[in-house]
């Protein structure tokens, strides 16, 4: 439950901070939230991945929708993608990967002082 709450926080803080700060601050958000909220490595990975994935997917779709998908179409062609719908998922996947890695490292930092490392499960 606590972990899920952390995921929601990543989504909310990521959303707000990205309006003002460079896009990669999302990694810092995940890192910090993981320290405070994730008690298992798998939570860190899954929630790190899916909160950023969801956030970026939503933003990418929302912005493209507002634009009548004009730019999405052109950029997909530019990148050689067969369908424009793949592009937001590609964006989201990159964000998810970054989210998973940064929250996992946050979780490990939180764990440094624990005598016995928790099993990766």
């Amino acid at each position, binding site marked *: 439950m606590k972990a899920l709450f952390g995921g929601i926080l990543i989504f909310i803080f990521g959303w707000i901070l990205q309006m003002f700060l*460079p896009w990669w601050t999302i990694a810092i958000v995940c890192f910090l939230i993981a320290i405070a909220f994730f008690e298992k490595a798998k939570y860190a990975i899954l929630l790190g991945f899916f909160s950023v994935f969801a956030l970026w997917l939503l933003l990418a779709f929302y912005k*493209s929708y507002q634009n009548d998908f*004009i730019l999405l179409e052109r950029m997909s062609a530019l990148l050689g993608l067969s369908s424009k719908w793949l592009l937001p998922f590609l964006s989201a996947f990159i964000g998810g990967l970054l989210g998973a890695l940064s929250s996992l490292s946050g979780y490990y930092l939180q764990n440094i002082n624990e005598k016995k490392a928790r099993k990766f499960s």
Partner: protein
Amino acid sequence: MNILRFILTFLLTICLLVVLNLRISDKPAFGSLLNPSTGFYQFGENPSELHLPENIVLSELEDEASVYFDERRIPHIFAKNEHDLYFLQGYVVASLRLWQMEFQVLAAEGRIAEILGNEEKFIAFDKNQRRMGLSYGAKNKLDLINSDPFSKNLLESYTAGVNAYISSLSSTDYPLEYQLIGYQPEEWSAYKTTLLLMNMSNVLTSTEYDIENSNFLSLYGKELFDSLYNDDNSKLEPIVESPAEGWKAALNRDSLEIITLPNPANTLLELSTLQDKPDVQIGSNNWAVSGEKTASGFPLLANDPHLKLSFPSVWIEMHLNTPDLNTYGVVFPGAPGIVIGFNDYIGWGVTNAGRDVKDWYEIEFKDEQKDFYKWEGAWRACTKEIEEIKIKGMPSVFDTVIYTHLGPVCLENFETQAGTKNFALQWMAHQASEEYKTFYLLNRAKNFDDYIAALRYYSCPAQNFVFACVNGDIAIRQQGKFPILEKDEGKFYMDGSSHEAWTEYIPFEDIPMMYNPSRNFVSSANQIVADSSYPYYLNGVFEYYRNRVINEELRKLQKATVEDFKNLQFNNYNLMAAENLDLMLAYVNPDLKEGEHAEVYESLKSWDFLNEANSLAATYFQLFSESYYTLLWDEFVEAEVPGGWDPYKWKKGWKAPGEYQTFQLLQDSVQHIFIDIQGTEEIETNGDLLNLAYQEMLSKLTKIESQEWGKYKNTLIEHLAMIPAFSTNLDLGGNYKIVNATGKFHGPSWRMILDFDGGKIKGIGVYPGGQSGNPGSKYYDNMVQEWATGDYHELLYSTDEASYQDGNFYQVNFKKR
């Protein structure tokens, strides 16, 4: 163990971040590009919102001002004074087209490798631009502008506006192309605006073949040259009719020097450093008829300049208003004022003059140092400029450009049979001039006298300015600065050791002009300006077909309306085919016209000579005639590149006669050595060539996807940096040499028709693009369909500012800080 795991994942995260922020071999950084907050998504504009905020406060403004954008994002700028007007024009144009306006001038200056990287073709392009002296000419113009407070203020106001916009952006806001290619905009300057003019001069004065002609002359002699490259225009109609009382000009021919032709031993063998010649498929139409020929009793005027079809469009459309000025039209992004358009009193348009204002001179250096060159039997010192060509991610390359009294030594160290040679370029565009002043004054002109007064400042690239006025006047005048030349001077390269730089120019009063002619119309379509009775030598590359169709139609025209003018702009009559197809077919053997081939032949025979989009015969004729041309001139034309489009690709250092001359030779049954195909045993005749060409056409037809003309031609509007995803293909009628000059890569870049009904101008227009240069905007290409289907939109130029406040316009309030 825990620490290790932390360090490992932490480092991995950092690595991923670095990779996502890193540009690898010209690909944009993936994280920066694909993240949804600052990545490309932010350039996707909401079509129902404006790209600028409602209120903008700027310290440079002298007063308050407003800009109203209509539904097509055409800005209507209402300023209280001239400074603010041109300042806001710069600001608004930059907000729509920043990347394009800068990219064009960087290309003009020869700085492509600096942006696009280490590729042979970019470096060669840059070198050539430097050696042609584009920046040299731009600096000469800038010096003159800086000495004239009027021009200086005009350009400075515009420049300040562009820079105010650039400084309002943060680096992640720079247009998408900057993000994709990975660089940042520089400050704008008056110098950049003069470079833009040099760029246009380069495009519009590119049609000269001095070296190519000299090669032909050296190998085959003057007699053959004159018979094949016959520029006899006697069957054609020049732009300006010879005055009944004769030309006023009194030219003392004896005072001119005799031109020495290049030595026959001087054939140029190694021409690999010659840049590909820009194509000759650019051109334009303009015409005006007086009230005698219209339904309303007032003039009508039309103009469509044919340029490379590109995204962002070469033009931007706008309306400029101050208490003393109200003008509407199109302009090149980066230039102040309106270039083609109208105001409350007059309308004007331009076509290219096509005159040769680029001459080449052989330069003999004293020694390898190249500090001195031969001049009148002695040695004269050169000046040298070291050009640094920056290359992205690589050390710079340096090139020394040598300047003579004639101009820069553009072609250096050419291998020829007679040893290495060097050629200097004298080019009218190098000279100081103030073309922007012409447009400033035209924008304010109220009558014929004002129009003439404005044109006095215009030197290069020479244009045919068509004119009409609410008082019923019409006129046309070829305006430019032209050196006085002896016959054949400038057709071949000349001796730089005895030739002075141009000093004498055709006086302003002697330049051909027509004002309210009795035939009640004026027109130009890049044909020769006057017939052989004109006392000055006219050299250039001229058009032979469009202008005859236009004049034929204008002569017939009675009670003309805007509809008639629209129809004429879309006239698809292929005069070249009409004049030659029957003759060509007569040579073709009967067995190629029967059986399985009967359909093609019948289609050609019954063709109405209209290059409509769905015409099959238009495609057949195109393939047939270009095969014939390529077979005939196989000595000069690269066979593997199908011609016709862009246009024929010449073998380096050679150029075949044009299509008109080619067909004249066929009609007159002139026999010459080139009819024979090189490398075959037989001696071919025209009949053989036409049969071969016909067979080639038949076999090509089986290989092409669609035989319909529009689909086969497949007109391309290409992104400036040639990014295919940002380009568009269209299925359209028309072609080069046809009034509707919609070719493969070029076409009507702006169609405008002005109706002077009742002494009040009503304009319609359209261009193949959109106001925005942003590929993420609906307004990047929103007018393309309108352009393609032959629609026009009304050009709103009311002086009543309140009429723009009715809720149908986006209002941007500019306030002084």
